[in-house]
């Protein structure tokens, strides 16, 4: 299979990065074959945090299985819950009230900004800059406080349920989101000044971890990783769900395909998320926040698939129903897994320091890969 540690027959050194290593995000295990400092081969090994969420969901009802998806990609847990709810609603053919739809979309975009901000801080820390981490967490804290007030939790929200959302918005919600938008607009320039414009940072990112458009498509890269290589893959644009079809926002596309392009896609995406929130925050209609549903949900016999755009890319939920109260089979398509599979191609032939820059811009969340 693979050499644990030592030397290959060709005389290359084999070392393990991870599963507990400051350069890896979480418990990712990379078996690296190195020629001096040049990477010959990279093998990601998964399974350290496998919790069999898919199998577990088969014994849970359609209301219950949604909470587990918060534990997959915990940085965009709200969007995962959204995808699952949409899939169940598709099967039941429930019409979600417009107020609930707009609440969901605003929360989605706030989650996306929070996720990208954490990525920005963590990636800069990977590259050796320690201050950005605190700057990013300061603004992210504003979002988590908004989430805590309305959803009741900071990270694993479980706010969305089939038919709408669990509770109405907090009375202070609109005021706080508006003050966050003002805060964000003053701070994004600070981010750019601190990191983006830095020559040392740019030299470490430009031309590193190149992923061609063809490779991005064949590996199934979605989200900012795919879009940085010029693949148009924004689910919000291509297959609009909820109110995304009516909104004005741009799909950010870069063609360079290197780490800096991926970085810029995410920075611009945060601005687009702010643009979406600005359009919606004053236009939340009154009305119900939860549609009337039956006490016990039973999906009709058949197969249902729903995809949403998380902060990392396309998240798909595939439910096979036999007509009972529990799903027969659930499959999640997580964006991180496909994005990680492109890593060996991206870093082949580059130096080991570039691996960190390439992996940082993939924005991996390991529980999302392993489920």
């Amino acid at each position, binding site marked *: 299979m693979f050499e644990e540690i030592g030397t290959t027959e060709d005389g290359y050194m084999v070392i393990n990065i991870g599963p507990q290593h400051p350069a890896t995000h979480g418990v990712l295990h990379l078996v690296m074959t190195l020629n001096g400092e040049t990477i010959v081969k990279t093998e990601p090994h998964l399974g350290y945090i496998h919790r069999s969420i898919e199998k577990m969901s088969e014994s*849970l009802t359609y*209301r*219950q*299985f949604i*909470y*587990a998806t918060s534990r997959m990609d915990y940085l965009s847990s709200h969007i995962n819950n959204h995808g699952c709810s949409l899939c169940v609603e598709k099967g039941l053919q429930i019409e979600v009230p417009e107020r609930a739809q707009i609440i969901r979309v605003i929360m989605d975009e706030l989650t996306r900004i929070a996720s990208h901000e954490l990525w920005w801080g963590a990636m800069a820390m990977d590259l050796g800059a320690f*201050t950005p981490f605190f*700057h990013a967490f*300061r603004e992210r*804290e504003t979002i988590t*406080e908004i989430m*805590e*007030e*309305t*959803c*009741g*939790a900071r990270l*694993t929200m*479980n706010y969305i*349920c089939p038919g709408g959302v*669990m*509770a109405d918005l*907090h009375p202070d919600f609109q005021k706080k989101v508006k003050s966050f938008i003002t805060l964000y607009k003053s701070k994004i320039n*600070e981010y750019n*000044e*601190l*990191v983006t*414009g*830095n*020559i*040392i940072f740019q030299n470490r990112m430009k031309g590193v971890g190149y992923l061609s458009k063809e490779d991005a498509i064949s590996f199934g890269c979605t989200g900012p990783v795919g879009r940085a290589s010029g693949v148009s893959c924004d689910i919000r644009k291509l297959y609009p769900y909820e109110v995304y079809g009516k909104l004005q926002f741009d799909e950010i596309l870069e063609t360079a395909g290197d780490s800096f392009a991926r970085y810029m896609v995410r920075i611009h995406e945060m601005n687009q998320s702010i643009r979406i929130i600005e359009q919606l925050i004053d236009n939340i209609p009154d009305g119900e926040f939860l549609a009337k549903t039956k006490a016990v949900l039973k999906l009709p016999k058949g197969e249902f698939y729903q995809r949403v755009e998380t902060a990392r890319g396309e998240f798909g939920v595939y439910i096979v129903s036999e007509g009972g109260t529990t799903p027969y089979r659930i499959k999640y398509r997580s964006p991180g897994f496909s994005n990680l599979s492109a890593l060996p191609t991206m870093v082949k032939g580059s130096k080991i320091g570039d691996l960190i820059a390439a992996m940082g811009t993939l924005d991996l969340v390991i529980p999302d890969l392993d489920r």
Partner: protein
Amino acid sequence: MFITNYIKEIFNGVKSLLTGMRITGYYFVHPKEIITEQYPDNRATLKMANRFRGEVVMIHNENNEHACTGCSACELACPNGTIKIINKFDINAEGKKKKAIDTFVYHLELCTMCNLCVIACPTDTIKMDQTFEHSVFDRSQLTKVLNRPGSKIKAGVE
């Protein structure tokens, strides 16, 4: 040519470093803009949001009465088997048997604070409390009985 570029690069690098350092310096001389909270020291003033999900508690009024009918809706709604309700039969004034809860067992160690039980409850007798300091030295202390000793069901709740 090479030397000029080399020197230029050094100056550009230093310049962009100083741009970044300007922000660091700004916060250095403006300590009031730092928002860090010193957690264990501010426990007296720390207030969680009203909806914050810390643990499940049962609402009792001043007469030590609750509204739990023992219908097990929360037990069925829970994805993790956190709640276990043991029922008994009370004999009321007219001599009829009536179902009532004996113990409402709540396993905090299994709870994921998903709020499904609170939503499922038809009489709104359980709610999420805002406490979050749950660490104990023994696992058995995390298994809690939510109905208080001697409590009984409120009159009029079916």
